[in-house]
């Protein structure tokens, strides 16, 4: 089966690079084609990369708390660019401060993300979800 393509990056003015590198390594090992646009990436860079590479999934990381502002209107822009079928995953410290996780998760699901992850999880969890969502058999 053809490899599924994932756009990976850290959104906004966020420079947290470690998790990004670990995710690239883990996702590549799991058999995905990774387009890593790295840290400090505006919404447009995710969208352009997804259009150019005909990506199946966009994975957004945000660790510094501005995720809430940075992701405003992201799904709408994806739709405008013809990416309505591209899956949107996001994970990290998505809001400022320690807030109720279920509420944070709901906030991002309402914004149009398909999967929302809390901080501190290992790459295995999103990898299992990706395989499920993309219909990849083990």
């Amino acid at each position, binding site marked *: 089966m053809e490899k599924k393509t994932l756009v990976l990056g850290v959104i*906004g*003015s966020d420079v947290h690079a470690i998790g990004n590198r670990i995710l690239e390594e883990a996702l590549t090992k799991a058999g995905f084609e990774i387009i890593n646009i790295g840290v*400090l990436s505006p919404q447009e860079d995710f969208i352009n990369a997804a259009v150019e590479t005909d990506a199946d999934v966009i994975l957004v990381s945000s660790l510094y708390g501005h995720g*809430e*502002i940075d992701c405003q209107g992201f799904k709408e822009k994806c739709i405008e660019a013809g990416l309505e079928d591209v899956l949107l995953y996001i994970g990290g410290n998505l809001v*400022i401060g*320690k807030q109720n996780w279920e509420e944070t998760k709901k906030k991002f699901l309402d914004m149009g993300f398909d999967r929302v992850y809390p901080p501190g999880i290992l790459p295995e969890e999103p990898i299992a979800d990706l395989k499920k969502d993309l219909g990849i058999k083990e």
Partner: protein
Amino acid sequence: MKLKNKKWSLDKFMQIREEVLKQWDTGAEVDLEDAIEYHKSLPEQKDMSKKLIEAKEEKITLTQPRAGVALIDEHVELLKFLKEEGQADLLPTTIDSYTRQNKYQEAEEGIKQSKTEERSMLNGFPAVNHGIKGCRKVIESLDAPVQVRHGTPDARLLAEITLAGGFTSYEGGGISYNIPYAKDVSIEKTIYDWQYVDRLIGYYEEKGISINREPFGPLTGTLVPPSISHSVAIIEGLLAAEQGVKNITLGYGQCGNLTQDVAAIQTLEELAEEYLSEYDDIVLTTVFHQWMGGFPQDESQAFGVISWGGATAALAQATKVIVKTPHEALGVPTKEANAQGLKTTKQVVNMLKDQHFMPNGVLEKEKEMIKKETKEILNRVFELGKGDLAKGTVRAFEAGVLDIPFAPSKYNAGNLLPARDNNGAVRYLNHGNLPFSEEVINFNKEKLEERGKDEERDPSFQMVIDDIYAIGKGMLVGKPRT
């Protein structure tokens, strides 16, 4: 832009200054003469340089948090709480991430949304947008020195506004606020822009106002070997001193092995004194950063990490310690959590202030190796610059002679791979293009082979990943997951 490690003439500085002050409209408020007068009017207890000199003489370790929110009144309330409830000796103002990227329009939007949402939508204090008046309101409301802490590659306007606003200490540097904080800014540009900041502080110094300068020690905060952060700290200290900075605090981020961490703080001071000896009247102090990598989510476990950092800082006799909070794994802490981290640290630091880490043979060996590694790197940097440190630094990054692990910058070679040895000390698994002697290479190799044997696996990138996750999962060394 002709980069040289040479003190800027006042003319050159003033010429560039005109452009810098136009970057945002609050820049027009800055008047250097007024700023000098303002600093002269401030009481002594707000003077960071003085407070650090006293602590150095008394051999005590001062505590300092990180903290910043979007709005002025809330920011003052937060810092007051950390001073009173958290017993912080020194105060910070952490700058938000939009300001760090010079995105003042976005910071403005964050201020607006923070007002309507009635909670901070920014992860720090947007000092440029608040201008001199906003900064002075903060300074006047507090009775401790306040430092600007950020992560800004081009921090020139931020420096102009905050220093004129009464801040007495400024963190950062042309390497330490570029390579870990940017992906696309040349090292040549940031060294040049930080020469401006240092020259500004040199100007204050000439007028009798001593502003403390602190290069950012921990860099990427993840498995950075001491000789890497020492090399950067010493280079930035020297570049600052050349522009007339006198009060310098060099930093180091906790690795986790007590002997290595004590050796690191001691050698940082000893090496820096040696390298800075050509400059007169420099006062050197040290800052120890509690664990900068991934934290456990469980708050009790997080207090364990915080305490160990506090203990190490005290035993190493660092002049100050930057404190983490039990919310670290989840992002920006509440003021209560921040105060808890401070009080935990204060308790440990007070208990250990009269105890010293005794030489034990292992400490001496560790110190010897850190010094050897650092000197091998720095010698090559000077060689590459044909004696000019600024040029040498640019060339050293191009050649991978200076290389910072896990950094986002494309101007960083990224060939290094660090890993812990069997005792948890950070070693070079792959030293990339670092100009190391056989002795240094073999020392690191043997240490890691010892661990590999113990874990029945060859040292590899998986070992490094395990080490990155280890403290978050309750261990120091990332033993294989079962």
